[in-house]
């Protein structure tokens, strides 16, 4: 009898745990597969020619297959664009390092945002000014796509 109760109690705990795990990682309201990869809420940091800038966006993989973003390029503004991440070192310093690729699992969103993964635009040929629109080529495993991202001012 006692054992049954303990068993039920543990079972309850497990269910509770699972329920939580299902709701937590998906703040994105719709899980519907749109059948395509979407780049949402993208923007480029305003910057000066020869200095550094960064781009950010959310990748939503609405296809049934997992995909990977391998690289990004933009002939228009720089011949050196890298995928980076900011991170905290073991001794508490902030640093950034190149990331080989960004996995984008089916049905999920991956957010690139300040302080995390970012697209590093190294020494752009020209000023990136508020209101400009810049064309990027995104190189996914599934193929390449051209996407325009707006430049936004640092306020």
């Amino acid at each position, binding site marked *: 009898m006692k054992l049954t109760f303990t068993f039920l109690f543990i079972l309850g705990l497990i269910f509770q745990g699972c329920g939580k795990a299902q709701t937590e990682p998906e703040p994105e309201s719709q899980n519907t597969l749109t059948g395509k990869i979407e780049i949402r809420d993208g923007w480029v*940091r305003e910057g000066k020619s020869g200095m550094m800038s960064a781009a950010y966006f959310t990748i939503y993989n609405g296809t049934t297959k997992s995909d990977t973003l391998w690289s990004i390029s933009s002939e228009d503004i720089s011949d050196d664009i890298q995928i980076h991440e900011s991170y905290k070192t073991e001794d508490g310093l902030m*640093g*950034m390092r190149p990331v080989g690729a960004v996995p984008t699992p089916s049905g999920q969103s991956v957010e690139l945002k300040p*302080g995390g993964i970012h697209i590093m635009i190294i020494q752009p040929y020209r000023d990136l000014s508020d209101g400009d629109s810049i064309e990027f080529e995104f190189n996914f495993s599934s193929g390449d796509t051209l996407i325009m991202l707006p430049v936004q001012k640092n306020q």
Partner: protein
Amino acid sequence: MKQLFYFLSLSLLIISCQSGPKVIDDLGDKSFQLINQDSVSVTFPDDYQGRFVVLGFIYTNCPDVCPLITQNMIKIQKELNNPDDIQFIGITFDPERDTPSVLSKYKETFKLGKNFDFLTGDPAVISEVMDSVRVRSQVSLTTTTDSGKEIYFMNHSDKIMVLDKKSRVIIEYGGSMPGIPNLIVEDFKTLR
């Protein structure tokens, strides 16, 4: 039991209010020859004495975390309505690349106005400044890009500090976190 808890918290609160902010580092007797984004010589912190200083540390080749630090400082300045008794200063820990003209462009991209300076200087002097406020930085990675440019990135402390009118560091927070401006704006309510 509950009452005892309230009593203790209240006494703690009173004690902490009375003692005033504690001095973390005293820069009052220090003097560094630096140069600002307009190539004007600056003696730090002497030239800013008599005013509060909100101090951050950046390098301009960092387009991700350092803008968060700069933007946090901007938020503090805006929230406090661009006060004249508070000077905002960003000091670079990468003086080799961050010359006055580079800092001037950096300042321009953030559309900063009055009472906001970026400082650089001789690398030896900059390193003394950083030591005096326990800010660390080191070259983390040197790479040659696809097109053959040699660039390096740095690991660095992430801090914003407040100096009182006598150039004493009395507040120190993480620099890039989103909650920092509110904390410092709150602190200024009791400081001024």
